[in-house]
């Protein structure tokens, strides 16, 4: 394995296994659909017409390339290092999720299917899927845990406005992992006309690799933009990690630049030491979840444990297999950021730069503060600002007590 890792560039790895991680742990009934998908997406990536269509949608609909914003006032709190924000929050629908949803929705048409289903935690992937489905004339059903429907109400309404059916999931912890279970059950029942549009770089092969392929545009743009702006590559790239799609999307272009450190920020919840967190790499163990072998929060018997995070989008007890592998080979570092540190970074970006980030992305910002302090004024930190915080204003209002008399001064 190590010999191979040295020989092939890291960017050339396409699964189904990343070291000992990944694979397909799914019912036989889904094998045919996964094979079909594997062939379809690989064909699509080498089909000039498909790629031209996707590129056109990126430019004329999503708003790509997303800009880079330098954050000098925020940077004063980060050791004076240059902080560069990759503005995925400015994409149509407000997060990086649209890159993947658009790619997979186009593939759905290519495969002759008429219906897409999705799981969603924060609702951003559900909104992105509902949007792509509306644009391309597909039926959309989105599964969402009851707990998440409450804390991300705005996105529930957006999905319904866009014509998607949102189905509340009441099993298990009623969050993202349970929504994914329910989507899998739908898929195995309706696979003939339905594509399961998984929203993160997780799930059975080829999903982790395919989702990365549709998100790697983030890093490809950012690498060029940082070179143009700063004349050199960044020292560190920071991204939050739920299932890992925005992180692998920005990491990918830098995998074979050994001088660039890659840092994934997991949701530390109340703190990894409390057991109430969602940091699968930092605080999990090797297991299988949703069709792939990876790091999972689990008990001594292999039962998945509930994850905890103030951020619905990071509240997932597993992590994409490529991240598990990048951790194992030491190419990327993964660190937990607890709720309090994330919310502090959230508030700081609002006030210093006039940007309200998604709480997910605030975990990456907290990581950037630490990295910037370590590097000092000569350092450059590139941060994936994966989404905007409109969906999080209720959570923030409660957290900071902003609806109380005399607050906000």
């Amino acid at each position, binding site marked *: 394995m190590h010999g191979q890792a040295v020989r092939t560039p890291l960017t050339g790895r396409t699964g189904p296994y990343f070291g000992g991680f990944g*694979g*397909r*742990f*799914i*019912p*036989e*009934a*889904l*094998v*045919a*659909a996964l094979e079909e998908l594997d062939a379809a997406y690989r064909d699509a990536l080498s089909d000039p017409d498909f790629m031209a269509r996707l590129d056109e949608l990126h430019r004329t609909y999503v708003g790509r390339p997303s800009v880079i914003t330098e954050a000098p006032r925020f940077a004063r709190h980060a050791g004076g290092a240059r902080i560069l924000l990759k503005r995925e929050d400015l994409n149509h629908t407000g997060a990086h999720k649209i890159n993947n949803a658009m790619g997979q929705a186009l593939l759905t048409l290519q495969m002759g299917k008429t219906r897409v289903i999705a799981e969603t935690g924060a609702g951003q992937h559900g909104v992105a899927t509902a949007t792509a489905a509306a644009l391309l004339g597909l039926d959309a059903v989105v599964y969402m845990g009851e707990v998440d429907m409450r804390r991300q109400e705005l996105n529930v309404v957006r999905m319904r406005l866009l014509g998607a059916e949102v189905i509340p999931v009441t*099993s*298990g912890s009623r969050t993202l*992992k*349970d929504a*994914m*279970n329910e989507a*899998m*059950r739908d898929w*195995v*029942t*309706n*696979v*003939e006309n339905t594509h399961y549009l998984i929203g993160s770089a997780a799930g059975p092969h080829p999903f982790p690799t395919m989702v990365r392929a549709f998100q790697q545009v983030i890093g490809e743009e950012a690498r060029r933009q940082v070179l143009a702006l700063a004349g050199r590559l960044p020292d560190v790239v920071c991204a939050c990690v739920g299932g890992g799609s925005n992180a692998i999307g920005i990491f990918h272009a830098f995998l074979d630049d050994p001088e660039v450190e890659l840092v994934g920020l997991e949701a530390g919840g109340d703190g990894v030491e409390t057991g109430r967190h969602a940091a699968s790499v930092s605080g999990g*163990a*090797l*297991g*299988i*979840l*949703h*069709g792939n*072998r990876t790091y*999972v929060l*689990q008990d*001594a*018997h*292999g*039962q*998945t444990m509930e994850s905890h995070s103030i951020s619905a989008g990071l509240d997932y007890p597993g992590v994409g297999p490529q991240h598990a592998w990048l951790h194992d080979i030491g190419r990327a570092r993964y660190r937990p950021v607890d709720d309090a540190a994330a919310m502090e970074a959230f508030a700081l970006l609002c006030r210093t730069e006039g940007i309200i980030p998604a709480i997910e992305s605030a975990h990456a910002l907290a990581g950037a503060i630490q990295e910037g302090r370590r590097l000092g004024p000569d350092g450059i930190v590139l941060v994936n600002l994966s989404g905007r915080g409109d969906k999080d204003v209720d959570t923030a209002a409660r957290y900071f007590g902003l609806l109380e008399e005399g607050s906000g001064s």
Partner: protein
Amino acid sequence: MSARATIEQARREGRAALIGYLPVGFPDVATSVAAMRAMVAGGVDVVEVGLPYSDPLMDGPLIQRATEAALAGGVTPADGLTAVREVAAPALVMTYWTLVDRYGVARFAADLAAAGGAGAITPDLIPDEAAAWHAAADDHGLDRVHLVAPTSTPERLTLAARSSRGFLYAASLMGVTGERDVVSTTAKDLVARAKEVTDLPVCVGLGVGTGTQAAEVAAFADGVIVGSAFVRALMDAPDPASGVAAVEAVARELAAGVRKPSGVEA
């Protein structure tokens, strides 16, 4: 007797075998074991001992509810081995693979064999990922039952059959566990396609719940696999003792069904 010998014995008797599933630990370990024994007393030939798992993505609402309750009661894979030990019929463990992965594949095979288990059914472990399990099962002479589905290509059917020992599990329809009003029409076709590539007994599961349905399936399959109907019997009962009795009654109805194949009503 092994699972295969039991199924072949049934075939010599001119009937299909009856295979019954219950999850260990619902409503508690002792009652679930008593219900498995009652199932056998009622005419079940082979028992599937289910290990409850937190993310049962191949199960419908009924089995989800039962296994969630079992987990809330603290059931562990070791309780599954206890059940295997106490059931007086060939017993296979039915498990999502992550539980075995965590237990340790070699240790699981050794402990299952020591408990007198016949083997394991692995619904989310496709043969492509099963090298370690196959080796461990071979070391301990255990059955390894893989599934085939209506979407399985001829190549996949062959792979699953070659990789299985004991019998081949034909998942009769595209979907999750749970009772259905009618037996899926895809079941018969799937069994016929499987029979073209293997001499193994082919048993049909998913959606069979009544004596009439069992009789229909018995007309073309070597075994009829029933789960949700047994779980429902336990779930709907006012107390554990009547639940166990209800399970035995369901087994009797199904056992009569597999003895009058071709779907003719009595």
